[in-house]
């Protein structure tokens, strides 16, 4: 549910950014949502759909959400494991350990904004 306040923060950033670039319209907003950010992409997207039309600046803006590839590290052998599925791997492919930790992916990043 905190997705809504993050979208509000995003809107403030977009307003500032548009002023800096003397842009009148935001066209496209690229956001990367990490798997472990605690942010649900659908809720974030819903918040954007609700708030964007309220301001002329963002009325026509499209939100593009990207998910970075999941990465896990193994505590036993330091092997870096890349996994693209939803769940973490059962065993480390290198040493068979089950002792994993997630690498990064705990943030939500405003990557790119297109405007005119």
């Amino acid at each position, binding site marked *: 549910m*905190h997705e809504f*306040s*993050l979208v509000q923060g995003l809107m403030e950033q977009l307003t500032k950014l548009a002023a800096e*670039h003397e842009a009148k319209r935001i066209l496209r907003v690229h956001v990367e949502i990490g798997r*472990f950010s*605690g942010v649900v992409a659908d809720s974030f997207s819903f918040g954007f759909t609700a708030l964007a039309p309220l301001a002329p600046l963002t009325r026509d803006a499209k939100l593009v959400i990207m998910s970075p590839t999941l990465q896990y590290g193994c505590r036993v052998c330091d092997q870096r494991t890349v996994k693209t599925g939803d769940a973490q791997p059962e065993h480390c492919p290198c040493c068979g350990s089950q002792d994993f930790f997630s690498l990064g992916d705990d943030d939500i*990043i405003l990557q790119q904004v*297109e*405007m005119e």
Partner: protein
Amino acid sequence: MCESCGCARDHKVSGNRQQANLNKSLFAANRALARENRKHFDRRGLVVINMISSPGSGKTTLLEKTIEALGHTTRIGVIEGDIETERDAERIRAKGVPVVQLTTGGACHLDAAQVHRGLHLLEQEEGGQNIRLLFIENVGNLVCPAAFDLGEHQRMVAVSVPEGSDKPAKYPKAFATAQLLLISKTDLLPYFDFSMDEAQAEARRINPALEIIACSAVSGAGFDQWLDWLRRLDAQSSATGKNRKK
């Protein structure tokens, strides 16, 4: 450098279209405020604990009992976060310590800006200038509060026995970001299918450095361990001048 016009700005132009590459976290504003809070806490010599758990896990009762046990030797203050009502603040106020209730009006977590405001309000309360140990009781929610740094020194996550021992595995972020796991309401262990081993193993799998204390504020079992943990924080902080989260 801009590929279209060669100017120093990082944008591309076609017609009057521009593209700005930012690579900026949406948590950046909250993190910056949290850093300011932490500096302020350190200047004031405060040790600050952010308490995160589901609703009804016993955070407020734990605080009441903690104030009863430590209130005469340690100057305690509390910031209460709830969606609605002053009820928790009234319970704490009845114990005679300065308290501020923040009602979020629907928001599911406290953020650094609210805590900043809460701290200034607390300083206006009687005794609010001389606090040593500040508890921030976050909104009851095991999900959203985990994503927001408040500037605290220590983060405590609580799971009560009736909630079940699968909570660390199901809500990993709260456990990954905490320093202490408190398993509460252990007096109810005979009545619930709660596996202490599962809860501890799952929590440590997510966060191997996590300290774990099991206690009951009602029976008093394990409660001394919790008080010792608090006393240790207080002592460490006195020795080093600060008590930073890793």
